[in-house]
């Protein structure tokens, strides 16, 4: 416990119980927020210190679209026990249902244009402090036993009546928002504060490596408040309001904090008694978060490497899922973290019940997070990258997706991702049929950077050869691998550290007596090669003015101003040139798209002039 506490706070802080109690909640949040996988599991969605004052922070919690504020109120020490109290606030999102329960004035403020900016530094704004408070949080620290205790106190419902009523000026003229004597605020404070307390307590269990061994719950009579008629806000008796108070102790041997007044003990629990029914599902009972250590918030180290993007295509049943499972397993074993995005571009995957989120997490484990999109890929990606900091993003498209529609969209993401590969998986048994009948299947093959012929064990040799010939006709250049159960090492597929580069296309092999079929508007490919180094400025100009029906260009070229060859990658609207790792001696460009031959000819002529 002592060692674990030291992971949170250094000896200099733990030596002063008052400071330790005051710093504990922030340390719990900060330490757990460093690790995306842990952060996500515990229910944090980001935190931020108020910048102007030292005594406040804002934090978001899963399932709440608003922002919580925590403000240090007091810290003290007596009998070598440190105690700190914090005021807890909740600033709802203006579209949240609960906004109705806040005072009218709070509602108006929440709709102000600068609301979120003010919330970030809420400790500076007394109107926010006066109108959005929901609860009190206490943290207690006993150095002798290294015991800590977290306490939440809030009313079940905070009712405030306005004696004079309230008139609001609206575009349609004045509106009587509250009748004289009517209810201005009717806020479920305890319920609103609960998610934050759960996340904080779960963080304590995780950081300390133990679950709480004590729990006590009290209720007391609450009050309601009234204002108006020139008198300040004042308390009145209430039949319906109760003050609720819950304390969780970790190695805590002192009496747990008891609320003032005539509180009744509802529940007093101590380990090893069975966990009380009412809290059986609370997240703080399990201090372990298996498999979350592989995620890594790179920004904490100032590392801004972009994740690599793999587009995974293939017809339904080709074996994408088993390939992906192997890929994730392999990355996880090396400490990598993969974000898998399953979505049909343009299709509304979810019905927007995500509290303003652009994606939903379907699974998080040792090496990956799986997400489904709701709407824009770009917005979702921004959030996913920010929250999970993956090393790879795999965009898994369903079997009916045409990757050429994707390429344009992906090109717009090059500020966020490094485009690595279109990997296409074919089912050795069913592929011939799919390729014969579906233009989408043919496009998937044509645009692939890497091809996997999967389920090869289920096809005889003649069929395999015929399929290879068919595939080579569509895509002469991509490396092709034969696999079973999607099982292949990523190093084989992509080279060590994804350094494998395009290789020069093999000569096209046509199956006996069959010339390649030319359908109109079909995608084709062409290869051009260069004997002499090229002029960089001219090359860039050409790359920027390729016609829109060219979907991919890739290859290796020499420039006059560079000593080493460079790898060229082009998708519509974006291209990259990176030094080649190994010089294979080959210089070529593969051009893929509609009418690729003419485009390639034009490009060749322009570059040779």
């Amino acid at each position, binding site marked *: 416990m002592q060692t674990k506490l*030291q*992971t949170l*706070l*250094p000896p*200099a*802080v733990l030596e002063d119980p008052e400071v330790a109690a005051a*710093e504990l909640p922030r340390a719990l949040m*900060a330490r757990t927020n*460093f*690790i995306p996988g842990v952060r996500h599991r515990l229910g944090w*969605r*980001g*935190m*931020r*210190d108020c*910048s102007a*004052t030292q005594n406040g922070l804002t*934090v978001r919690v899963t399932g709440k679209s608003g922002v919580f504020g925590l403000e240090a109120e007091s810290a003290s020490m007596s009998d070598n026990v440190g105690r700190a109290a914090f005021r807890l606030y909740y600033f709802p999102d203006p579209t949240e249902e609960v*906004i*109705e*329960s806040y*005072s*009218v*004035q709070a509602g*108006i403020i929440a709709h102000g244009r600068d609301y979120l900016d003010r919330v970030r530094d809420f*400790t*500076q704004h*007394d109107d926010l402090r*006066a*109108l959005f*408070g929901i609860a009190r949080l206490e943290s207690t620290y006993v150095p002798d036993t290294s015991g800590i205790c977290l306490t939440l106190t809030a009313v079940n419902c905070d009712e405030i009546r*306005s004696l004079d009523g309230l*008139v*609001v*000026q*609206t*575009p349609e003229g*004045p*509106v009587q*928002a*509250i009748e004289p004597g009517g*209810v201005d*605020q009717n806020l479920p404070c305890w319920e609103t504060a609960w998610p934050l307390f759960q996340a904080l307590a779960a963080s304590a269990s995780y*950081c300390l490596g133990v679950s709480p061994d004590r729990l006590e719950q009290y209720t007391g009579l609450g009050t309601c408040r009234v*204002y108006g008629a020139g*008198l300040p*806000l004042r308390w009145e008796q209430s039949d319906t309001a109760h003050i609720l108070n819950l304390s969780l102790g970790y190695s805590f041997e002192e009496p747990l904090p008891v609320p003032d007044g005539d509180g009744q003990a509802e529940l007093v629990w101590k380990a090893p008694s069975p966990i009380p029914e009412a809290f059986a599902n609370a997240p703080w009972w399990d201090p372990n978060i298996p498999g979350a250590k*592989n995620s*890594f918030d790179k*920004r*904490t*180290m*100032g*590392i*801004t*490497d972009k994740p690599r993007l793999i587009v995974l295509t293939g017809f339904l049943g080709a074996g994408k899922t088993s390939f992906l499972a192997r890929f994730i397993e392999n990355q996880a074993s*090396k400490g990598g973290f993969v974000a898998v995005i399953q979505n049909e571009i343009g299709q509304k995957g979810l019905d927007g019940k995500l509290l303003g989120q652009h994606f939903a997490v379907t699974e998080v484990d040792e090496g990956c997070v799986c997400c489904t999109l709701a709407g824009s890929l770009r917005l979702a990606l*921004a*959030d996913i990258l920010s*929250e999970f900091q993956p090393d790879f993003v795999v965009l898994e498209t369903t079997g009916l997706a045409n990757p050429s529609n994707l390429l344009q969209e992906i090109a717009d993401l090059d500020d966020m991702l490094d485009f690595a590969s279109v990997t296409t998986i074919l089912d050795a048994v069913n592929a011939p049929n799919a390729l014969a009948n579906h233009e989408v299947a043919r496009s998937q093959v044509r645009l692939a950077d890497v091809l996997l012929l999967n389920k090869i064990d289920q096809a005889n040799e003649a069929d395999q050869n015929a399929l290879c010939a068919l595939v080579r006709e569509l895509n002469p250049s991509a490396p092709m691998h034969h696999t079973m159960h999607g099982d292949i090492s990523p190093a084989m597929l992509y080279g060590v550290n994804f350094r494998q580069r395009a290789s020069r296309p093999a000569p096209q092999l046509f199956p006996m007596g069959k010339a390649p079929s030319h359908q109109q508007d079909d995608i084709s490919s062409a290869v051009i090669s260069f004997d002499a180094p090229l002029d960089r400025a001219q090359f860039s100009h050409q790359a920027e003015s390729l016609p829109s029906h060219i979907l991919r260009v890739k290859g290796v070229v020499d420039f006059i101003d560079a000593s080493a060859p460079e790898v060229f990658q082009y998708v519509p609207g974006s291209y990259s040139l990176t030094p080649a790792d190994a010089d294979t001696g080959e210089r070529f460009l593969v051009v893929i798209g509609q009418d690729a031959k003419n485009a390639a000819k034009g490009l060749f002529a322009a570059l040779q002039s």
Partner: protein
Amino acid sequence: MSDNIKRRDFLKGAATGVGIGLLGAMGLYSYSPMRKSHFQKAERKMADIGVCKSIKVTNISETSWFENAVLMGDIKGAGGLLVNQYDYNWPPFGNGKGLGKGSYEDGMAKIKHLLPDRLDEAWKIIEANCVNVDNAGGYAALIELEQMDGAKRKFLLDSGWSYKWTEECFKREGIDKMLENKEIEALFFSHEHFDHYWGLPVTLKYDPEITIYIPEGFYPEGLQYIKDCGHKGKLITVKPGLQKIIPGMSSYVFAIPIICRVYGEQSLYFNVADKGLVSVTGCCHQGIIRFAETAYNEIKYENDNCHGIYGGLHISPFDDWDPKYDDLVISLGKYGFERIGCNHCTGVLCAKKFITAGYPVIEGTAQYRSKDKAYLGNGDTITFG
């Protein structure tokens, strides 16, 4: 509430930008005692830290490690971002048992008798016992302050990580001679992280009597390291808040948790005559906004102007809850810095964004293993005033 629907409708009016407001300003807030209860009015303290004529910063090294992938693999392999940095088995504290199985005591026992003078021999032992020794670099900067009367004062900020790399960089910039001649009057540590702190013996080899300032919050291993490296000078632990050093120079300690079980960061503020505030940071884990806001609230500086900044500019100490807002590029703009030299943990992408945004970034020469001209790189200098 019976008037829910009605209430929601007129609140929406506010969102569409059509002004709605309380009539007679007699809402709940007018009656709230909170109006008068603000116990921490953030009034600017405007502490007078004096003034200096100019500041010159020499980047001794900003390259803390050479391969990101190797570093991330090590941290993940050792158990993640909350693991005690002394347990990684990184140089110099290796015991030969492999990643994540090290300890300060084991590692130190192997090299203590060689510190701080026989670093080459120590490094041979370190190479045999630690993981990924060649990935270690380090962060260190020389600060030369010119007083109003023209006299020069020199200080070090941090002392790198790899003994080998740090010593190479010290020799390149002549720091070894300055230390030997007692020209450098103090060494400030920004924080206890491996890449800023573990190269301490290289400074002590050339001047074991140098005064050292550390932020409060060092762990027992870190405090022991100062002794084990053979420090014979004064050690000053700076408590959270402002500490005046000499006219025109002060340090500020932020009590914040940092990854790898580190706590507390010390940054430097200077007040340059006719120019304004100059900030020098190691990593700025407190976040640039808090850093600049703190200066604004705590310190009086010339013309109330933010003049310059040097060092690692952390995007944010944590993941902000609003990705749209968590953009250092936007946030830095509002302070109007006139000279920016950034490197280390700023991120090259971020530095390039500054340049694109038209910020006055002083570009470097990309020498001595610094990767990009957007960074004020190893061996480069920047002058303020």
